[in-house]
């Protein structure tokens, strides 16, 4: 075998360089353009519940938060119950579309033990208190106070909802506004 000419070898390196630059720039571009999509979040390798891909079958991590009156509320209190964790905020318009539906669904499935917990992502407890004074809610509201992120991560956007069955396993995570029939169906899946 004869060695390739030096000129050809040099051109090979140029081509490799161009291909690599192109590939990396494409990767950077696609990362930037995908960065605001739920798919991008799902594609990350983070193990946190709100940031990773498929969470079905995972045990919902324990949490203890406070309601708007400062009373501790923990997930453990609802052991054996189907639980909906709805991450919301007072500044989230789509969340407020769902909230009347959650109230109706809470009432509808109360006899079957359903517990709906609205986890407020507001920075200020006062904002939540003011909001609830104007808009009474018939299900449990807790204030995250940025403490749940250690185990659950940060929701890409609100609303984000977790459906947890009686065994404490997450069956589904829904991001963004859904129709009431879809929420109802997800609830029936954990009863």
């Amino acid at each position, binding site marked *: 075998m004869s060695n390739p000419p*030096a*000129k050809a*070898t*040099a*051109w*090979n*390196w*140029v081509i*490799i*360089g*161009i291909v*690599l*630059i*192109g590939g*990396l*720039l494409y*990767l*950077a*571009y696609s*990362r*930037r353009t995908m*960065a*605001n999509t739920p798919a991008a979040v799902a594609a990350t390798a983070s193990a946190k519940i709100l940031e990773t891909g498929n969470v079905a079958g995972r045990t919902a991590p324990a949490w203890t938060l406070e309601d708007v009156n400062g009373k501790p509320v923990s997930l453990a209190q609802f052991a054996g119950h189907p639980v909906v964790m709805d991450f919301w*905020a*007072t*500044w*989230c*318009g*789509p*969340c*407020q*579309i769902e909230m009347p539906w959650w109230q109706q669904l809470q009432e509808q499935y109360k006899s079957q033990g359903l517990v709906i917990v609205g986890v407020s*992502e507001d*920075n200020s407890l006062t*904002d939540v208190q*003011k*909001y609830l004074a104007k808009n009474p809610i018939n299900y449990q509201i807790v204030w995250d106070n940025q403490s749940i992120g250690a185990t659950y991560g*940060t*929701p*890409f*956007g*609100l*609303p*984000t909802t977790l459906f947890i069955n009686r065994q404490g396993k997450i069956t589904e995570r829904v*991001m*963004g*506004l859904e129709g009431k029939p879809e929420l109802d169906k997800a609830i029936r899946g954990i009863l």
Partner: protein
Amino acid sequence: MVDRGQGVGICLLGAMIALGAIAQAPGVAHLQAPATVEARAHSTATAVFQVAIDAGFHIQSNHPKLDYLIPSTLQIAPADGISVAKVAWPAATDHKFSFSSDPLSVFEGTLKVPVTLKTGAAGAHTLHGSFRYQACNDQLCRPPVTVPFTLRVDVR
């Protein structure tokens, strides 16, 4: 011609460029501050900021119609005798969304925000400021974001 070392260099340069692009924080509204503002001493000058909002998203205007919505703000801390006289937000759009019963006052697309500065003594000054916004689309809302920036003001 390009030798092996130069080829490796090209690859590394490409990787650095790409990683630099990746390192930019993902966001919905992208602020571009002017590189430098030139001004006369004890006078006024205008710094024009540009905000590019990702397609499909909106941010709340500087005067949202509902009190629980988070307004867009652009603040610059006074320093070296320089302070903000006026932030001239453009006219907002009244937009009806699927989740809102009434139109909301929002910004969409690309907007320019001229900021009038009152200047003090001559010199090269660096001001620190922040742009805060909260973005939504039809389906979801992103958490509020505060973007820090620096602004160089050359006062002569």
